[in-house]
């Protein structure tokens, strides 16, 4: 194992060296950093060219320049000694990277986590209902998402999600036509999801269409879009749905103790909604307050599950703590919504941002800055999500189908296990193994940022650093970008292989 690791690390180092040399040469071919001065007729043109030549060592041939860069880059092994050269405006590349990496991570992490969760969930459900109407529709939609150019989606989102939506928020009334349209769409969706015989689908369609249209009309009439909020009633409804759903997944509805402990957590959540409100309203509230409250919620769930326990405490504890955590999330969401009208007035009635990752010079408490971050990142996150969702759905569907045909699944059925246990315990866990590799690869690509999404929404992350370096014919930031992305990609490749052999004992790493 150790020898395998050492060998892999050595090879990775060689690969990085080779690739960095190639990239350096390509960057030098891609543009002339002096071009902007050559064309200009400034009086001090020669002096400026001289300065830049010295800054970038342009008087040294490419190969020599590469080694100058490399000798600086090698020093990165020692903390604080890193020297990746300077940008043409004289800023050290390390500083530029230090400001770009966090904003990229902030953008991409949420998108990729959501894409994995939603994608895997959809993939599993479609696999379990292979060749149903739902499966076919989802397959078509995933193919469509696969085929969407990301810049097109981003520009569309900017137009409809920000500009038009802000216009709507200025006067949030919903016409009957809109409500009917939304109702029909939701009816079709629910009929597809629930499925069954045509009669059942018809009933589902009718109920869902009427209910959604009524909800939308009610929300419009009650000015919900201007003054949103969940209130105890909605928290109770959503909470109960979460409790039942999680109980079905973790314990099965026949395990009444698990169901009751989850429902107790919903009740406690509603009580907590009022109990912690003064705490949340204090101006000193920060992210740690939220984290501590979240941990408390999970702890309370575990405790209630343990007390309700019965023959299988673990199941009740799992269901109750997760319900508790999600209900706490609802309570938090409700608190954010209370600050929404204030945020809308701060932004002059145009809350959804399209430029950058935050409003410059924003004054406000924890809730306002949180909303600001949300309203700036929601659209780029959706853009990224839509595109990466498709591949996760396909992968998890294929993997789940493969697993469901295995002998051990049949054995599990044959020994009389319920379908829930077969799917969640036997099939689902094994279906995730091949996904681990895909996820590790994707995380390796994560720091590369979303060049196009960052470009459309003007977020100053890694992608912007890279593309601006290319556009300004500025070699050092491009190399800095490559170094960070190359190292993470190679490292996560290795992690993917190791994870696979750890998860699936049949796969051995060969030294």
């Amino acid at each position, binding site marked *: 194992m150790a020898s395998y690791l050492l060998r892999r690390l050595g090879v990775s180092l060689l690969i990085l060296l080779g690739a960095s040399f190639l990239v350096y040469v390509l960057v030098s071919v891609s543009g002339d950093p002096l071009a902007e001065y050559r064309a200009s007729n400034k009086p001090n043109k020669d002096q400026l060219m001289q300065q830049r030549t010295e800054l970038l060592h342009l008087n040294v041939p490419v190969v020599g320049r590469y080694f100058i860069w490399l000798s600086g880059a090698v020093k990165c092994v020692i903390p604080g000694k890193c020297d990746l050269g300077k940008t043409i405006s004289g800023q050290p590349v390390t500083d530029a990277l230090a400001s770009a990496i966090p904003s990229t991570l902030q953008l991409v992490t949420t998108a990729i986590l959501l894409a994995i969760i939603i994608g895997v969930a959809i993939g599993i459900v479609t696999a379990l209902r292979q060749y149903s109407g739902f499966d076919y529709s989802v397959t078509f939609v995933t*193919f469509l998402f696969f085929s969407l150019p990301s810049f097109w989606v981003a520009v569309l989102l900017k137009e409809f999600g920000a500009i038009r939506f802000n216009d709507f928020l200025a006067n949030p009334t919903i016409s009957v036509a809109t409500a009917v349209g939304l109702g029909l769409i939701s009816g079709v969706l629910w009929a597809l999801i629930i499925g069954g015989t045509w009669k059942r689908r018809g009933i589902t369609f009718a109920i869902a269409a009427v209910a959604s249209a009524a909800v939308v009309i009610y929300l419009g009439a009650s000015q919900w879009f201007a003054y949103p909020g969940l209130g105890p009633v909605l928290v109770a409804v959503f909470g109960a749905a979460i409790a039942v759903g999680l109980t079905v997944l973790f314990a099965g509805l026949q395990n009444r103790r698990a169901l009751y402990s989850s429902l107790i957590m919903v009740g406690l959540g509603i009580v907590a909604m009022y109990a912690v409100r003064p705490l949340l309203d204090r101006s000193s509230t920060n992210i740690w307050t939220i984290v501590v409250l979240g941990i408390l919620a999970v702890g309370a769930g575990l405790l209630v599950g343990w007390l309700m326990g019965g023959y299988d405490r673990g199941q009740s504890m799992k269901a109750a703590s997760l319900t508790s955590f999600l209900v706490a999330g609802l309570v938090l969401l409700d608190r954010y919504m209370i600050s929404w009208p204030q945020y809308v007035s701060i932004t002059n009635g145009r809350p959804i941002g399209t430029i950058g990752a935050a409003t410059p010079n924003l004054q406000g408490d924890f809730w306002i800055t949180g909303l600001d971050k949300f309203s700036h990142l929601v659209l780029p996150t959706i853009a990224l999500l839509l595109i990466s969702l498709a591949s996760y759905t396909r992968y998890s569907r294929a993997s789940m189908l493969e697993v*469901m045909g*295995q002998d051990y699944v049949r054995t599990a059925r044959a020994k009389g296990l319920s379908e829930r246990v077969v799917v969640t315990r036997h099939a689902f866990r094994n279906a995730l193994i091949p996904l681990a590799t895909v996820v590790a690869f994707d995380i390796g690509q994560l720091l590369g940022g979303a060049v196009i999404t960052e470009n459309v929404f003007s977020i100053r992350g890694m992608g912007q650093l890279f593309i601006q370096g290319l556009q300004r014919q500025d070699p050092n930031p491009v190399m800095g970008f490559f170094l960070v992305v190359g190292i993470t990609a190679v490292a996560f490749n290795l992690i993917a292989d190791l994870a696979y052999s750890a998860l699936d004992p049949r796969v051995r790493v060969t030294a």
Partner: protein
Amino acid sequence: MSQQERLTDTLDSREVPEDLKGLSQSALVRKRFLGHTGAIVSLVVLAFVIVLAVTSVGFGGVWHGWWKYDWKETTTILNGGHPTLSLFPPSLGEHPFGQDSIGRDYFAMTMRGAQISLLVTVMVGLISGLVGVIVGSLSGFFRGITESILMRFTDIVIIIPLLLLGAVVAFNSKANVFVLGALLGLTAWTGMARLVRGDFLTLREREFVDAARLAGASNGRIIFKHILPNAIGVITVNTTLLMSSAILLETALSYLGMGVRPPDTSLGLLISENQSAFQTRPWLFWWPGLFIVVICLSINFIGDGLRDAFDPRQKKLVLKRVKEADYDPLLEATQASALPGAPLSEIVGPPVAAGGALTTVELEEGGRR
């Protein structure tokens, strides 16, 4: 129950469709592909788009197509440049896709853009398919030092950002769209190489390769006549998928100003030039985007159809039947691998010609027994 008995037993309990009996493997693949509605519809749509793009505005000044305007020509703006295309009653009108802000006919421009994007797509597909197959088959077949060198080289190419190559092309005045296609093709082959290598690694251990070698076949003959035909499924499917990602790549590069540059145009460049006019001239934004989506979607569906055609194993495994009847999924495996009782993990690619042609024969024999 012995392996053989069990196999016979299960073979008897399932019916081989009457119309599939006695067909060659390529006939089977063709039949399955033609039965895939989505793929056939997509094929027709794609063919229509290609013919429309190539014939309407001609190609490269060699020949002027049937459309009355050229994509460079400026005309007087009619009706604010609104599209005149109407479906009821069907008519094209003067400018079916409208006109841009200086009065160029947008149909001609979109067609020219589609031509360029399709050209790059096909070039990337062919070049990277070819390089990928060569690298993959050499390293999979010879193994040892050849494999390590080629695969390490693949690893290097993987981490080179494609955007950089776009920049190399974009900032060199001499480089044109052919250079762009070639460069992208020379870097996009890595996935293909890995897949083909994987296929070769399993195929080279099979009996028919040993048999060929004993019969005195040279390495070249074994690779081209015996192994490659068996890997054709993986290669075809992945070339298709490569092309669908190539069109997205080309349009994205052009959108960022790193691919096709003015005065030439491409679908991505059209979107990039006109995105600020979304409020005033939305059609300038919709048409090129629609063409990208249609081209890419149809290529993806064709790829899906090909995959199902070459690899019936995935298609046949219907969960509902597994759940309801005593259906034997292992049989699918034995059928696909032509090796009774081979573990599922060994089956990487679908067997097609030479060695794989056994499958139908075996099924028939099994049925008679």
